[in-house]
């Protein structure tokens, strides 16, 4: 034990620690404020409707973000359409059906580990498994198998190449563990008495899940899913590996189109030596942050309004 301290020393310690706390906390808020203000300062001047409607250009004053903006929409839509059913299904199985066997413990540990895998490693996986398909359909850029007309909406080719489909599936791998873990937490928060009630009325396990547990957990699942999707919108390293195009003049028109996404466009512009492109990058960041804020706002709204206390 430490030596006994006088009351005044202890009170001073107490006071000093509180000041330290306030200092640390304010530093975090200050960092956020500086970040937002400095980017707004730099990006505000070049942010207008033309910027949102223009394609890529070698001149900063003509360049815009319409192509990466639509690229983000396509990629994130594919990512969400696959990751959400798969993730929610996995979570339901693990929480509601699986007995606590060795297998489920391995699956559980594995999901926690997947959540810790760096996103660029998922990029490598996406490049090999989706863009190249392990070289099973020939290597290089030329397609092994083609279905349909390259201009139509239903064009498909194998391997996928550096397409919106490959990009979306790669992002799906990144957010899948996040969706699973947040859905599991939402399901765990449902009191067991609700399930017991349904089961006591003779419902099967699935009927209990579909009729009682899942509806009660929907706000929690939606909050987690929206946060996972906002992660997907901002993710860029895996798509850099899968191979997004840097200079595109057309928005995607089918699953096999080349793509760029907003964060990669920011990356690309920030890397250029010309200051004009740096301002454009700042403007694109403002757009990106507005989209993300909207997503987070919806998540907060759902959490506050729809989540009724159970019991």
């Amino acid at each position, binding site marked *: 034990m430490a030596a006994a301290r006088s009351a005044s020393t*202890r009170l001073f*310690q*107490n006071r000093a*620690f*509180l000041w330290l*706390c306030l200092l*640390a*906390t304010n530093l*975090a*808020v200050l*960092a956020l404020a500086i*970040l937002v203000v*400095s*980017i707004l300062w*730099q990006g505000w001047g070049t942010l207008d409707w033309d910027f949102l409607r223009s394609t890529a250009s070698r001149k900063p004053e003509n360049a815009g973000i319409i192509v990466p903006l639509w690229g983000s929409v396509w990629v994130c839509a594919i990512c969400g359409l696959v990751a959400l059913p*798969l993730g929610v*299904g*996995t979570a339901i*199985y693990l929480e509601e059906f*699986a007995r606590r066997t060795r297998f489920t413990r*391995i699956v559980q540990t594995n999901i926690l*580990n*997947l*959540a*810790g*895998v*760096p*996103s*660029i*490693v998922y*990029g*490598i*996986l996406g490049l*090999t498994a989706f863009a190249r398909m392990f070289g099973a359909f020939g290597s290089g850029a030329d397609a092994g198998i083609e279905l349909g007309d390259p201009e139509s909406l239903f064009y498909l080719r194998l391997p996928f190449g550096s397409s919106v489909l490959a990009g979306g599936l790669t992002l799906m791998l990144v957010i899948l563990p996040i969706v699973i873990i947040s859905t599991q937490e939402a399901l765990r928060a449902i009191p067991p008495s609700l399930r017991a009630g*349904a089961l006591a*009325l*003779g*419902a099967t*396990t*699935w009927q209990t899940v579909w*009729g009682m547990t899942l509806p009660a957990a929907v706000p929690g699942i939606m909050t987690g899913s929206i*946060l996972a999707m906002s992660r997907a*919108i*901002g993710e*860029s*390293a895996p798509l*850099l*590996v899968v191979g997004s195009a840097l200079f595109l003049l057309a928005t995607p028109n089918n699953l096999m189109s080349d793509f760029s996404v907003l*964060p990669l466009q*920011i*990356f690309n512009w*920030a890397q250029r030596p010309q200051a004009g492109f*740096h301002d454009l990058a*700042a403007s694109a*960041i403002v757009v990106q*942050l507005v989209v*993300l*804020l909207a*997503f987070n706002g919806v998540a*907060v709204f759902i959490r506050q309004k729809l989540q009724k206390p159970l019991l």
Partner: protein
Amino acid sequence: MTTAPSNLTPMTDLTRLGRPKSVAVRKFRERLIVGSLAVAATFSIFVTTTILVVLARETILFFRFPDVSLGEFFGSLEWNPLLGAEKHFGIWPLVSGTLLVTVIAASLALPLGLITAIYLSEYAGSRVRAVLKPALEILAGIPTVVYGFFALMFITPVLQKLNPTLEGIGTPESPISFGGYNALSAGIAMGIMILPIVCSLSEDALRAVPRSLRDGAFALGGTRFDVSVKVVVPAALSGIVAAFLLAISRAIGETMIVALAAGGMARLTANPAAEVQTMTGYMAQIFGGDAPAGSVEYQSSYAVGATLFCITFLLTMVGQYILRRFREEYD
């Protein structure tokens, strides 16, 4: 003799969870659903296996190149696959670059994050929380490429303003003078990035400590400082350490900040003002189009990726072990 209790069937109608169906149809449907859910759950195992197979296969292909060996990979202190006549593939410069940036980020974010967490959990009233929590959530949601841009366009110029003051510090071989790319700038941005992770996970751990412990410490005459730092923090230590490890592993795996702000020169240095390259930064450079597919440089990035995967995997496992092994159970 029937095995299914017949009195269960009429009960189903009471549940109003669908039209009444025969037991056989219901059982079949149930089995189909459970089966497909189980397939979904197995998918995650499949993902892990594929990651391992891909990394292993491509890394072996890298070591098959004539001028590459496992001994050089772990023995050489030089990494220059793109420049110069003689190529060297020693992983240590990339590891040290990663470590340097991570240490800077951690020394910033771990203390600040923990103190903020203590403040949020033990001191702050609901009004302060209502402002602080959303601010931290926004910080957590900002894409990493934005932090990279911030480091390159704001932090680095600020650091460069310090250069005249710093003249004469450091050795002639590695002077403390900030260039356009440096480890400190990337480290600071990364620190801001992992701060919310440290903070929210530590706060969860602190809040999980039962109230009775605090009440007991207060009853013994402890100040709020005594209670928070000497009772609550030690009780939540396993969760806090796990939060630290998770944040560090996130920093090690982070790509876009270092790709933008840390530079592209792999070298063994502890100088925070120096341009360094991290493992992720190298991979971004290669996959971003600096090397033709199939070349030895291109293939080397898989070996770097495998190393990165092993490090972060190890950190995650240690974190989970600490959580399980050292968790204090009250109740």
